[in-house]
């Protein structure tokens, strides 16, 4: 049709020297993929801290870091899917807290571990479903619907507990957050294993299934997606259910680790979760990014926090440092896209 002399990708790949191809491929990947760039930054940061502090590169410290950001990262996978699908979920922090509170309350009222955990997860998925319906059916902007849900969820936490933390959770429940699993030479915290497993599952969902293809399509251009026959309302509901569900997993792991379900838990975490996704190169315009970005984004924030503590940076100034990182990360991404 349009007879310009461009070749198809396949033909290009057939020619050229192998080594050259590898080099240009690597350069292209780093240029194109924010995830690899960020991974590089993470490695440099870790390298610096390993040399300049005695404590950073100890398995205890590394696993503490992993455990500390695992629940943020898990919630960030759900958030990533929402943002890729063209939305935003401000209720993630409240849903984390509420699912922890519900599981804990059921436990202290004598329900089994299995039932309590399932109830907490189900509640997270249900609140996500409500978000999705509000956004897709009543056409509320995602920001407003989930802002409302954030407040409703937090209110439920306070109301149900009377403001008191729920304590004395059973051993079987604390297992999830506190158990270490031997992997090769190390004892890896169970939440970190959950995090990796969920990252892989999320990646496969987004990259290999029709649901994933449709999430990217709806986030990239909702009108085009619906003209192409994609049920955009259903996809919208799906991503908020996933976000609620992942937030609930994060919330239950957090509660299990801390051994107490406080109504004030995870306060403001939604911003950390969104920041993890954004640092990881997931565009708030939708349609672009990957869960690996959210994972690396969450890791960078936690390593930065840890590094600031280890190097004796005053703790009160930490949020400013994190904020600067968010701005710089997104700025780099914007520059690259020009």
């Amino acid at each position, binding site marked *: *049709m*349009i007879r310009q002399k461009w070749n*198809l990708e396949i033909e290009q790949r057939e020619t050229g020297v192998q080594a050259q191809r590898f080099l240009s491929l690597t350069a292209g990947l780093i240029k194109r993929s924010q995830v690899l760039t960020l991974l590089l930054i993470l490695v440099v940061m870790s390298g610096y801290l390993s040399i300049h502090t005695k404590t950073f590169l100890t398995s205890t410290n590394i696993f503490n870091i992993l455990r500390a950001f695992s629940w943020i990262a898990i919630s960030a996978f759900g958030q990533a899917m929402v943002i890729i699908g063209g939305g935003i979920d401000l209720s993630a922090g409240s849903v984390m807290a509420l699912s922890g509170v519900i599981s804990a309350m059921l436990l202290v009222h004598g329900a089994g571990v299995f039932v309590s955990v399932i109830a907490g997860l189900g509640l997270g998925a249900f609140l996500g479903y409500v978000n999705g319906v509000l956004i897709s059916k009543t056409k509320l902007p995602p920001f407003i619907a989930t802002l409302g849900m954030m407040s409703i969820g937090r209110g439920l936490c306070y109301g149900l507990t009377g403001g008191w933390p729920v304590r004395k959770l059973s051993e079987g429940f604390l297992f999830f957050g506190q158990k270490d699993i031997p992997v090769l030479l190390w004892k890896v915290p169970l939440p970190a294993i959950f995090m990796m497993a969920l990252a892989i599952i999320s990646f496969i969902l987004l990259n*290999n299934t*029709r649901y994933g293809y449709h999430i990217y399509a709806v986030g*990239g251009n909702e009108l085009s997606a619906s*003209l*192409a*026959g994609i049920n955009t309302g259903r996809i919208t509901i799906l991503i908020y259910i996933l976000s609620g569900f992942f937030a609930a997993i994060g919330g239950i792991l957090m509660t299990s680790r801390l051994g107490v379900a406080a109504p004030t838990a995870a306060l403001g975490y939604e911003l950390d979760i969104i920041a993890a996704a954004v640092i990881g190169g997931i565009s708030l315009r939708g*349609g672009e990014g990957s869960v690996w970005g959210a994972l690396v984004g969450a890791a960078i924030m936690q390593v930065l926090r840890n590094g600031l503590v280890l190097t004796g940076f005053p703790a009160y100034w930490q949020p400013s440092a994190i904020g600067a990182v968010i701005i710089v990360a997104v700025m780099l991404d914007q520059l690259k896209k020009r």
Partner: protein
Amino acid sequence: MPDSDVRPILEMKGICKYFGGVHALEDVDFELYENEILALVGDNGAGKSTLIKVIAGVHSPDRGKIYIQGKNVDIQNPLHARGLGIETVYQELALVETRDVADNFFLGREPTKDRFGIWVDKKKIMETTINTLKKLAISIPSLRTPVRYLSGGQRQALAVGRIIPWGGRIIIMDEPTAALGVEQSAEVLDLVRQLKKQGASIIIISHNLTHVFGVADRIFVLRGGKKVGSRLKHETTGDEIVKLITGAELV
């Protein structure tokens, strides 16, 4: 050709569509005959896009009936329309700019490897896209290029090209040459004739009367949401069509 013994493949009777208080279509009777190229013309706001969106399942009519090969159908959504053999190239092209060429080629109907339609068959996506684009001599820098980096002509070619493998009986094209230069327009019109040779019935919307007279068998004119005429190409002139479009003969 609409002879008495040729039945319409698509027939619409008394179609009405309102948006709020606006009558986008009012009591429109429309027919598309087997293996013809029908040009749908009219001024801006005449209801052309609304009419084809009713056929494509994007809008459902407020009143009226649609028949495909004589059978009354209620087209519920774009997917249903495709199931009925209706393929559409929208004026807005319906491409997702953040996705790459291959993914846009199969947008909304990704082939899957399993019976439940879950696991996307990426290999099939790449192969079918390459083969179709090669067959049509459409040049695209790379199948992995996000559509936002393509030129207007390349996007148009992609939007037209991706309907080809599906073998639609009824093909609708809304302004397929609007974004194109002279040479590229000629190529798209060539493709339209080619599709006719393969047995498809085609509705093409265009503002360009040269294109219309170049490719169409019949011309259907809308004005203010109403049908004002349908003329065989060899029985009409550009002047008459312009008069129908603008309503000049009524003055």
